[in-house]
């Protein structure tokens, strides 16, 4: 009888190595963890930092900065217009082929 019991015990111990079953608890715990990491994953935000040109930003009472900017931009526009006008004027000054022939006939 003892021999039988020993045989059964050895069979059971040996077959634990042959099995491959896994605890459901571990499986579902890992599932929850993976679900969390997938579903509730939030994109990491960078920490708040001062912008490098923070000092240059206008304050409510100070309007000089805007004026300067506006004048700068208006200057540029003026310059461009002048150039455009100059170009247009230049174009008008130079007569085309037909005009020149008419002018010659009149003269």
């Amino acid at each position, binding site marked *: 009888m003892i021999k*039988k019991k020993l*045989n*059964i015990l050895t*069979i*059971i111990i*040996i*077959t*634990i*190595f*042959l*099995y*491959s*079953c*896994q*605890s*459901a*608890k*571990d*499986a*579902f715990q*890992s*599932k929850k963890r993976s679900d969390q990491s997938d579903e509730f994953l939030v994109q990491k935000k960078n920490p708040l930092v001062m912008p490098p040109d923070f000092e240059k930003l206008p304050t409510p009472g100070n309007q000089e900065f805007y004026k300067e900017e506006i004048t700068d931009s208006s200057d540029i526009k003026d310059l461009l217009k002048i150039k455009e006008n100059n170009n247009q004027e230049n174009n008008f000054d130079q007569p085309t082929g037909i005009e020149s022939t008419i002018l010659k006939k009149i003269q």
Partner: protein
Amino acid sequence: MNSEKIKKVIIGIILLVLIFFLDRITKILILNIVEETGKLDIYVNSFLNLYLVWNKGIGFGLLSFDQKSTYNVISLLILLINLIIIYLIYNEKSIKTYFLLVILGGSFGNLFDRIYYNAVPDFIDLNYKGYHWFIFNVADIFITLGILCLIFSELLNYKK
């Protein structure tokens, strides 16, 4: 070798191959579903779910380590147990031969996965009112059947 012994050997081989391939087919089917859908979490009924887990250890989630060396040692140990079972089958003349063959068929199925995938896929999740039994596979079913039959034959001291 007489005709009866040849017949016995052929039946044994057929039984072994049948169990091994039955286990393989189920595992391939499950892994194909996972490949197509990305995961396996199928609700069959209130007692049965199909949920895939990979077991790197032995039975009941024991000896499950990430270390490759430990895994290889366990695999070698399992291989050694299989060789012992083959030796027992070779020497056994009673009906226990078939029980051992059933165990060996299932064991080969799991050993194949250990070598091929470096882990064994388990997917049968039996549960009742939130209580889950260990997740197992078809090979485990055959091993259990073989073990139960072997224990009963040992208790009854069955001799042909």
